[in-house]
């Protein structure tokens, strides 16, 4: 009797879970802005990850064309204040910027999911301790922490990613915590527990797969946030250090040439804005697509 109802329950949740992945994409298709954003992001990532392999100029070497050259066929965006090819720097800079965003997001997801899932699943002391820490992280203005951490720990790419991730997990932990509380009450989780599955197995096999869509939404918005944070700390000179280009640090010294070579100060800023915009649209679109009230709209 119990066995039958458990099986049924598992089937009921297992089935919509599979279907939901397809539903997600087809619902996303209905949201034109989000769908365009998705393909735009695929394109941008392809360009900055493959582009540098094809483009003949290095982002760090002088081209010999001279400094602040105007655009030409050879250098579509001209050259910068030191005579480096701006197009090559945009490609490489984009690669570093997006990589920082992706890595920071992955770290944040791992930290946030572990903390949120453990707090929600184990309850009691674990919950109080972890959630108090999460609340503390939410209450402190995190830019103060980022600033202090990067000055004392140094600005290696690894540290930049780590520090951004260490402040970016809070929102994810909160979402995962709420969802875990909801899902752990279901009979199929109880059944797994009764069948003697370990806590780790229950979380990994039964709870987290259910939460995955929400995690994806949080992750999308976390990338947008990480890219913005990286560019802001670059402005303060605490991001990834030149000569390695990022879209953030390319803006650092560009202001003085704004009238002679406006492209230097405008292009990286526009690039950051558009990519973050696309991630935000995609995240919003995914969230709407996951909303059970979606059908009504």
């Amino acid at each position: 009797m119990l066995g039958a109802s458990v099986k049924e329950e598992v089937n009921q949740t297992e089935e919509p879970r599979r279907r939901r992945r397809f539903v997600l994409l087809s619902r996303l298709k209905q949201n034109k802005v989000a769908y365009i954003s998705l393909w735009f992001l695929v394109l941008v990532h392809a360009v900055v990850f493959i582009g540098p392999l094809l483009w003949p100029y290095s982002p760090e070497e002088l081209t010999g064309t001279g400094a602040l050259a105007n655009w030409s066929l050879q250098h579509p965006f001209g050259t910068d204040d030191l005579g480096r090819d701006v197009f090559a720097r945009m490609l490489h800079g984009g690669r570093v910027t997006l990589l920082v965003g992706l890595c920071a997001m992955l770290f944040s997801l791992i930290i946030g999911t572990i903390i949120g899932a453990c707090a929600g699943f184990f309850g009691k002391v674990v919950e109080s301790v972890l959630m108090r820490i999460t609340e503390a992280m939410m209450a402190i203005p995190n830019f103060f922490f980022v600033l202090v951490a990067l000055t004392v720990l140094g600005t290696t790419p690894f540290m930049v990613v780590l520090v951004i991730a260490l402040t970016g997990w809070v929102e994810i932990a909160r979402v995962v915590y709420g969802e875990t509380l909801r899902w752990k009450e279901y009979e199929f989780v109880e059944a797994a527990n009764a069948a003697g599955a370990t806590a780790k197995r229950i979380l990994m096999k039964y709870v987290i797969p259910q939460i995955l869509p929400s995690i994806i939404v949080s992750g999308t918005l976390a990338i947008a946030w990480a890219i913005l944070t990286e560019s802001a700390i670059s402005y303060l000179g605490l991001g990834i250090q030149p000569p390695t280009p990022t879209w953030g640090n390319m803006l650092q010294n560009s202001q003085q040439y704004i009238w002679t070579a406006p492209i230097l100060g405008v292009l990286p800023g526009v690039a950051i804005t558009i990519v973050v915009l696309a991630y935000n649209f995609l995240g919003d679109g995914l969230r709407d697509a996951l909303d059970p009230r979606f059908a009504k709209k």
Partner: protein
Amino acid sequence: MFRFILNRFGQSIILMFIVTVITFFLINLAPGGPTGVMRMDASPEERQAIVERLGLDEPVLVRYVQWVGNAVQGDLGTSFNSSEAVVDRIADRLPYTIELTVFTIIFSVIAGIILGVISALKRGKAADHVINFSSVIGLSVPSFWLGLMLILLFSVELGWLPSSGVGPRGADFDFAGWASHLAMPVLILSTTVLPNIVRFTRSSMLEVLSQNYIRTARSKGAKEFIVLYVHSLRNALIPIISIIGVLIPRLLSGAVITEAIFGWTGIGTLIIEAANGRDYPLIMGITVVITLVVIVSNLLVDIIYSQVDPRVKNMA
């Protein structure tokens, strides 16, 4: 009410403890330290003398306990780099940050409510789409870059607004000078919270408009104007007070960058100086004060909320 305050007090102590522990151990366990940024020609003996004078040769745990002991008595120590009391240095700067953030909140709330209400009333129409789109752009544009672009436009090209500083203060205070210095920083800082307020107002307004009592008001023949601005808006605005509490940490984060762009001598530029100079007591002091600001402002928001919303008021 008494229980509420007691509970809040307990939470604040825990919060303060976690925040100070994280910051204290982060800065003290990291390699480098105050001697790392001294003159290059300092001899090892000189460095050692400094370490002893600043008490850096004691174990970190002992130093933390000492620091807490002094801090609870209101003594946040002496700045390493300027030998002034940390409390005085922060007291000099904090009013500027509070001024900047308070005006940003006022501006963002007024503009946010107007835009949010328009967006909700014109749901699905062009105005709604334009406002929605602009909100997402506001969230996506790097604020420092937008700030620099505005400086280029309004200060360099048009010469309408000053590019940096807090303007004339004290004896030679004049309103026009003060307002012109405040305009761009407030505008830039509001990009960090305005989009959220717009979106929140919109959804709150839509929620209220779908309630039964609105339908009742309409069916009993109340004028559309009265329904919208008396029955709906008042109720839709109550939740907006609560979101301000959530946005305050973000606002203070944004203040760091905004102050750096516009040379605004608040606590944001002070933390940059403190971090660059490895000024441990100053870093700790700022951390404590900024956490206090968050705690107090959240308390204020909750008190206002409970006074405005009769449902919450009667519950407490």
